[in-house]
Structure formats: C-alpha cells, structure tokens
C-alpha cells in the first residue's frame, strides 16, 4: 500500500490492574489505505477494541506510533485533539449510548459541522444532506434519538461522524447491537460510504461472516497480537493459522444441514500472564514442543502473513503435521 491514510506501527498498550501491568496490545502493526476496509476479528479479550481506541487516541500508548495522513499523531493527550485529527472518526457499538437523548438529531449532527467552523445555517443544511446520505428522511432532524430503532440510531451516529468530513473511520462492533435485518443495512451503508468517499475503514467485529462480506483485508487477533493478516478472500478460503482455522470452523451456517460447529476448547488466557512462546499453543491442535519456547513473528505464507512457525515452516518441525 503506497499511501496509507492510517498507519499503526508497533503499538503497545498497557492496562494497570492492582498494581500489575498488563500488556493488552503487544507490537501490533496495521495500515489502512484510502477506500479500503480492514476487518479486525478475534475473541473477546484479544485487544481488537483496544486497538481501535488506541488508533483514535482514546488509549495512551506504551510504545509505537500512529501516523494519520502522513503526520505522527502519537503523543496526543485526551484533552485536546488537534484540528487535523478531525478526519479520523470513531463509530461506537451501542447507538443507544452514543447519542445524547436530550438533543434532536439535527442538533447532534450540526454540532459536528459547527466544530469544524461551519455556521448554524451550514449545520442545518448539512444535517439534512447527511441524513439523506445515510438513508433517513430529512424530517428526522427534528426528532429525538428515542424515536428511532437501533439500526436508525446507528445511521444517525454515522451521519454525525460524517459531519467532520473524515478520511478514515474506526468502527468498533458497529452492528453487533442491531437486529438481523438492520445489521445487513448498516454493513452495506459503511461499505458504500467507504467506496464513494474513498475513506479508510477499520471494522472491528466478532462477527466473522460480516467481516468476510465487506472487508478487503482481514486481521485476526489473539491475545494482543495479530496472528494472521491478508486479503479477506485468501484468509477465508484457506486460513493458515490454526487459530483462524478454528474461528472459521466455529461459525454455524444457516443452510439447514444441521451440522454442529466445531468447538475450540479453552478460553483466551489471562493477558496478565500470557503463555510463553506462541500465545495460542495451549489451545492449538497442531502445537509442538518448540511452540512453548519460540516467540512467533508474522511471516509471509501463501499470500498472507501468519505468526505460526509450524505452518510457515520457519523452523524444521520435529513432529509430523498429522500430530493435530
């Protein structure tokens, strides 16, 4: 990618818990191009939401850099976001909590316009435009958030982020709180905005099927690290990391065949004491002795990057593959 709109390099984020330091993200690299959707998937606790929040400056970084439109924006405090960061906007999971219930939709959207230096009149005009853009009637501007369904609220939240004329959106589980039919509507809307507006989009979701449908590239995270990243089609059609394989096999298909999804035993380990070596080895069906010792780094395998030396053949395997 020649000119990524957002580039995260070697990102680390720490949380403190009872005087203990927990590394929630550990050396994550991710770049998003203009007009590109990058899906971020993984089980809860893998750090995907932390990465989304770190990208927009909502989490302080312990290490690494965030580059937005070519500028390093790493050292920002939360108190004040500089003008040029307005182009990086976030869509949150719960449209019931991200909209002020006491203000009308028009006011909520116009705020974004006025913060960017527009007049009240600009705000009103642009609010009507943006409501139309996200598929709501212009008359919605005079209504309050509680008058809308979850899917409509998420449209409103998206319209509000668009008021800042962003070049990159970070969406943290934007559809998981919505009804089945609204999920498809919002996923399509986001994809359309990205294509039409040449925006970058980081789509965080635990719903792999939706990510597959809309994302150009997908990054699979496990315990604070990316374990597989590549073109969505490539990763999906033939996942190479054992964890990605397990995720894909666990998705139930609505084909009426009555096939139970494949179980991945165990839980994500406590990030306070990650397993040594490959962090996935205690749950991995193809783990070898060496996996307990060797730290895994991303390596190019079959058109995508994976962090698994067993599958990438980086270390001659002592045990046969059929061990799994």
């Amino acid at each position, binding site marked *: 990618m020649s000119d990524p709109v957002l580039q995260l390099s070697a990102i680390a984020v720490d949380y403190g818990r009872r005087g203990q330091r927990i590394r929630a993200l550990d050396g994550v690299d991710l770049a998003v191009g203009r007009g590109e959707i990058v899906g971020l998937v993984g*089980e809860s*606790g893998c750090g995907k939401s932390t990465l989304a929040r770190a990208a927009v400056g909502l989490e302080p970084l312990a290490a690494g850099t965030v580059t937005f439109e070519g500028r390093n924006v790493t050292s920002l405090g939360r108190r004040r976001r500089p003008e040029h960061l307005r182009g990086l906007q976030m869509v949150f999971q719960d449209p019931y909590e991200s909209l002020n219930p006491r203000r009308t939709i028009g006011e909520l959207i116009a705020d974004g316009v006025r913060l960017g230096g527009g007049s009240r009149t600009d705000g009103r005009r642009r609010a009507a435009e943006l409501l139309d853009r996200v598929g709501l009637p212009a008359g919605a501007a005079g209504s309050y958030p509680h008058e809308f369904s979850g899917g409509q609220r998420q449209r409103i939240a998206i319209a509000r982020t668009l008021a800042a004329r962003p070049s990159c959106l970070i969406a943290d589980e934007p559809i998981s709180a919505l009804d089945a039919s609204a999920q498809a509507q919002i996923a399509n809307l986001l994809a359309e905005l990205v294509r039409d507006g040449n925006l970058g989009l980081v789509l965080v979701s635990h719903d792999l099927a939706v990510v597959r449908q809309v994302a150009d590239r997908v990054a699979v995270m496990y315990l604070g690290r990316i374990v597989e990243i590549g073109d969505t089609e490539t990763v999906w059609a033939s996942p190479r990391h054992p964890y990605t394989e397990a995720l894909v096999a666990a998705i*139930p298909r609505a*084909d009426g065949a009555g096939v139970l999804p494949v179980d991945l035993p165990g839980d994500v380990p406590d990030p306070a004491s990650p397993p040594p070596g490959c962090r996935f080895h205690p749950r991995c069906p193809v783990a070898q002795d060496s996996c307990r010792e060797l730290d895994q780094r991303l390596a190019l395998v079959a058109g995508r990057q994976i962090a698994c030396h067993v599958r990438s053949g980086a270390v001659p395997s002592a045990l046969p593959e059929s061990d799994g």
Partner: protein
Amino acid sequence: METRATLLQVDGLTVALPTRSGYQKAVDGLSFAVDAGQVMGIAGESGSGKTITALSLFGLLPHGARVSGSIRLDGTELLGLGTKQLRAIRGRQIAMVSQDPATALHPILPIGTQLTEHMRHHLGVSKDEALSRAAALLETVRIPDPLQALRSYPGQFSGGMRQRVAIAVALAAEPRLLVADEPTTALDVTVQAGILRLLDRLCRERGMAVIVITHDLGVMSAIARRLYVMYAGRLAEAGPASQLLASPRHPYTQGLLDALPHPEAGGAPLVPIGGSPPSLGNVPAGCPFHPRCRYARPSCATERPEPEPVADQHLLACPPDPLRAAS
C-alpha cells in the same frame, strides 16, 4: 435414543401488554409444541414477541399483562396457576437461560451456593450430595477445576465461562425443559460452538427438551430440529429446520436468510429487508409483514393470514406464497 412424547403444548397463546395507548398484543394466537429430547427454535427480530413468549411459560410477564390461550406442560395447564404452584414448576420442571449471564448470577454469592440451593430446595438432597452434584455439573459444562470454581464468584469468570455456569445453574434441578433466550448472542463463535454442542448433548443424553430463542439462523441450523419464525407477535412460518432454512416459503424467512452473509457469495453486498419491524401498538393491519414484503398484493393489507399447512409439518401464514407463485 428418541422420545416422541409432547412435553409442552402451547395453543392460541395471546399476551397483551399495557401501554400508553391501551393494551397491545405482543403475542397473538401463537401455537407450538415441543417434544422431549428435542431442540425447538423460535426465530425473529426484536419486538417479534419471542421473549414475551418465553416469559409467559414461567408466569413472569410484566405486571398487568393479559394472557389467554393454553400452556400445558405434560398435560398440566400452567396458565392460571398460583405463585406457589408456579414456584414448584420453575427451576424444577422448566428452567431458563437468558442472554446476559451477568444478570442471571448473583454477583456476591459463590458459584457453589447458587448451584446447590436450587438442588436442595427442589430435589431435597443433602448439602454434601448437592456439592458433589454441583461439581459434576460444572464438569459437564466444561468448567476447568470444578472444586475451585464452586468457591469462586461470578466476577472471576469470563463471559463465556459465566454463561456456562448460568447453564449449570439452570440444569441444577434437572429440568425437563430448558428455555434458552439468545444464549450465545453475546459470546464469541468459539464459545458459542461449545455451548451449542453442550445443549445438543444434554438433549440426546438426558431427553431434556430445549427451546432456543434467537435471531441467529446459523445457530438454529446447527441445533434446532423444528423452527418457528415469528414476526410482530405472530407465527409467520413453522416447520422442520432443515426444510425451512433450505427452502423458506415465507418472504420474511427468505428475507432473514438473504440478509445473512453467505460464505459462498464472496464480496456481494448483503440483501437487507427494507424498513424495520413494527413496534408494539403499530402493527400493520392484515399481514403484519406486508409493508416490507416484495410479494405483497393489495389483499395483504386487509386480510390477516392464518398459518395453514403447506407440506408435511410445515405451516405458512402467507396466502401469496411466493414459492407457489414462482412455480
């Protein structure tokens, strides 16, 4: 091993809830049956009445709700039972697992207490017996180190583990029917797979019946034998899950399936159902789905469709029946 005995028989269940604009029907003339040892699924979006249906089985409807129809568990009519009689049935005969395990478990009681008080009350077993049964249950739901877990508190477990504990609590008094309302919606697919396998196993091994309520048709496809699709408090379509999902006949069922990402469809856009489901009190006349239906004809706006058999064990509440029209 399969038992074909009908455990739960619901006929013409209608639930009206008080709203500012008077009583509104949240469930309207719903009938279904669940056999022992079988997983039955109720699908629909929010506001379709699926959760109210579940609550009515337990006599736990909001204050002021008006219920009519019949709910028979093994021949015993549950509607109209007093609190005391219902208490003897809740937990013992029918138990519930809700979407949010955080609210189902008491935060400051150890898991062991929550598992055993149930058993001791309903089964009358001794404390030691209850504790050993509780440990075995935790093992069944695959909680590592069950003895340690009995002394732990809900907050010490992850979301997936808490849901497994909540299922263990629901199973503690060996109910004959488990009602699971969106049991895996908040969970990761990997944990979901484990819980679906667990429910399937419990049905087969214990002959327990399960009602799974979810809008996730993938989950339905994986475990439900029979499927009821609800829309705006009414039955849209019912039948064997394999048949309904492979060749849906109600436009709403078709729409739900089309809105799902298909593993084979590549990057094609999703096909959403236009509009959103009606809220309580705003249910359209005639067929409630007609404003969103691409097959709707004028009569759909006035004539209320009743579920009619269209194939073996297959009910359909849609007179235009797109499948028939297409052929």
